[in-house]
């Protein structure tokens, strides 16, 4: 794999990580509209799922109405999907899908803690987010991708920790999200890219 591609792949995971971790700013919206993500999507892969997801992503961006309160509406949707937790939300935590009791910060969190500690990494902010948050896992994956020597480890990480639940997460987002939602597209893209990664 080319170095350039490797970097783009890491960038893609970081892009997705950011999408699930923080609301879109007006600047982000402008950049997406300019097609700033296209470079990164090049690294996404060429499979049918991926291409479909990227297309959905573009559709979502194109569907954004040209209104000043777009940022607010997107923040509301972000909050509803990932922060509020009700019947119309999709928890971005591995434990929510893998733990029988539905408790957060379950075994996947503990495994992530061990992984991060071994890598000498920790959350950059004073934040009590459980470490099996999708964004944290994607960020970790991006780090692994950036190291050619860690290729095998990255593959195992995707297979063991992410793929077991990203599909269900993607379905949950799709079910709860509004039509043409960038978050539904992002979740689908995430799942597709990870499947193709192996």
């Amino acid at each position, binding site marked *: 794999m080319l170095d350039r591609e490797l970097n783009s792949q890491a960038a893609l995971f970081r892009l997705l990580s950011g999408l699930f971790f923080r609301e879109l700013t007006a600047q982000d919206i402008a950049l997406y509209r300019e*097609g*700033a993500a296209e470079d990164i999507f090049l690294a996404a892969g060429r499979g049918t799922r991926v291409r479909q997801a990227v297309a959905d992503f573009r559709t979502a961006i194109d569907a954004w109405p040209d209104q000043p309160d777009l940022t607010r509406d997107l923040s*509301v949707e972000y909050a509803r999907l990932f922060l509020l937790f009700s019947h119309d939300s999709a928890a971005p935590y591995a434990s929510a899908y893998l733990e029988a009791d539905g408790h*957060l910060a379950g075994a996947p969190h503990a495994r992530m803690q061990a992984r991060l500690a071994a890598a*000498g990494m920790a959350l950059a902010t004073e934040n009590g987010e459980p470490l099996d948050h999708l964004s944290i896992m994607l960020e970790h994956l991006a780090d692994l991708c950036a190291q050619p020597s860690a290729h095998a480890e990255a593959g195992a990480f995707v297979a063991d920790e992410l793929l077991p639940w990203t599909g269900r997460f993607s379905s949950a987002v799709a079910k709860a999200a509004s039509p043409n939602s960038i978050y539904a597209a992002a979740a689908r893209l995430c799942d597709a890219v990870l499947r193709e990664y192996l």
Partner: protein
Amino acid sequence: MTTRRTVLKGLASSAAAGLLGPSILAKSASAATTSQGTWQISGSHWGAIKALIKGGRVAEVKPLESDPRPTDMIKGIKGLIYNPSRIKYPMARADWLDNRDKADRTTRGDNRFVRITWDEALDLFYEELERVQTTHGPSGLYAGATGWRQTGQFHSCTNHMNRAVGMHGNYVKKAGDYSTGAGQTILPYVLGSTEVYSQGTSWPVILDNSKTVVFWANDPVKNLQVGWNCETHESLPYFDDLRDKITAGEIRAISVDPVRTKTQNHTGCEQMYINPQTDVALMLALTHTLYAEGLHDQEFLDIYSLGFEPFMDYVTGKGDDGIEKTPEWAAPICGIDADRIREFARLLASDRTQLIFGWSVQRQQHGEQPYWMGAVLAAMLGQIGLPGGGISYSHHYSGVGVPQSGASMPGAFPLNLDLGKVPQHDNSDFNGASTVIPVARWVDMLLNPGGKIQHNGHDITFPDVKMAVFCGCNPWHHHQDRNKMREAFQALETVVTVDYSWNATCRHSDLVLPACTQFERNDIDMYGAYSNTGIVAMRKLVDPLFASKTDFDIFTGLCARFGRDKEYSREMNEMEWIEALYEEARSANGEAHPMPPFAEFWELGEVRFDRGEDWVRHAAFREDPEINALGTPSGFIEISSRTIGKFGYDDCGAHPKWMEKLERSHGGPGSDEYPLWLQSCHPDQRLHSQMCESDAYRETYAVQGREPVYISPQDAAARGISDGDLVRVFNARGQLLAGARVSEDYPPGVIRIHEGAWYGPEDASIGALDTYGDPNTLTMDVGSSKLAQATSANTCLAQIEKFEGTAPAVTAFGGPVEG
């Protein structure tokens, strides 16, 4: 080697770099821990616990080894900490954030929230307090509501909220509470104390001396699982002793209740079935029999009571209504055979009898009357103040009946401003409105600003409230008539709520601030709210999850907005406060109740005191009624109260009376349309609304994901309902979905949904179907009477039908949605 830096470098030329934002991971020096985990002690309403902390998370929770009867609810604690419903970040309702007091209030509850930073959140909180104080004055702010906060003497959130908001300005407060509103108002006139929160005769004394024990509308085995402070469960083993004594024929115990209670099932006591809400009629007939058969203790009445004659005139038919309250009169009302009433009266008078009342019977219309009648009945039996005799209104609560050690307990974080300090807005002009309102009437207050009601000898004028602050209290569970409340909430411009989980109060708020749970902070608590058995260290188990903070930090931050954070915190941190509270108790206890120095205590996790002496309630009064006078207006038991009589209330007169209710089952008013009496008593598997969100534990009792509604086999069969069916329960006030539990414990005409079930309406409209099963969707919001103005939750009729079609999703909780 490629680093994260080169990733960005590779993209530097591209616009894409701008999309990536700051990394959420950073290099950390902390080494990997290979800990086997440590066991930490903490306390809770559910008892003292030990938690296994492994890898920075609570891996396991178990009761303290010394807990004699741990409650099953301990199993729900993990689900409470790691609940998907946790409030993760400060959130603001989008429309409110943009438009503030001009926002559309009809959309409250529609879940359009956005995340804001802590700084923004506290600025908003402060700006709104400032706006309301400046524009409307203190009568525009309601911050008095309180509830069963999480345990811990220092972090007690009620105190934090009151001190911080009070430091900024004055506000409308509440009087009384939902649990015992009618009882705590009437009993001071009758027995000279609230009684409901008083220590009761020690259980060993009752077990040794009583020949008959009557549990009147009371289920202690269910309710003693939880306590106001860290519960010791020392009272529960006494029910095993009681069971043994009943089996051995040494004690007869009778449960006067329409329902076969958990206590009855546990002890094997007898049941005296009674139609719901007719207890006063039964007691009147009992007093009639006692009097007619000369079984009453006239000497006791002469020495210790006042006003027996006017009451007896009423019973014997010489009163205004001219009706003699014979057993034959009571029989059709109560559904009890007249001869059985007579037998019961004779049994009560035959030997030493301990009457033990529960609280739910006073949470009904005219809820003052059954408590007053209970005291009258006990006075006629003449055993008040004798070991194993007389009356109690508290033996189901927080370990009452376990002797008190006499040790001093740690105090709490100050609720008040420090001596000599005044609020930032030192304004006491409430525009002629009352500063304190009876708590159960605050929704009426919102609907009727400037309106007047009578309350306990005073007139109350409702203030025009524009902003409400709730902290660690969930009025969207404990108040009655959800749909009326939804409408009333539209009167509020701003609602600020501090809590740890997305309950319905948060969902109907404008600004929601995430507090951490009690397991994410250090604290100290008394072990045994009445027994003062010891002091328990509540050691922080894990760091606050997400962006949550302790109430102390939140309100210190608020006070910093107006420059009084140092005064607020006294420049002491969490551990300094805890140590100070501990050392204060230690010094007060001196050599009488030795305590180790703080550091040692914190390591040990608990300190225990010697068990207290057995004790008999009202014994001092009985011994010398003159010197140890009761706190009644006369100092004696007031069978008739001239003081109340002079208030001139039509729904609470000079002596206890039987009054028909607005709604009553078994042939009473309204029963033709809605034939089932809905009982919404204290839950068996949570503490009010606390822990309802604990998903895995909830699944152990929920039916098809809904709150169970308990129903008799007869009523179920008549409606084609089987156990486990989804049903719709409804009346003119509202509708809810619940899961049917058909049980022989329930008689025809009686259904039960435990209070505390989270409200999860289908949508934001008024009248929307509640998808989980909050009984207060159906209950009536009227005052018990002009005396107490307390809740009348248990005056409620409903109908039930099998639910057909596709059930809407439960909206009350968070949690993953399976794709």
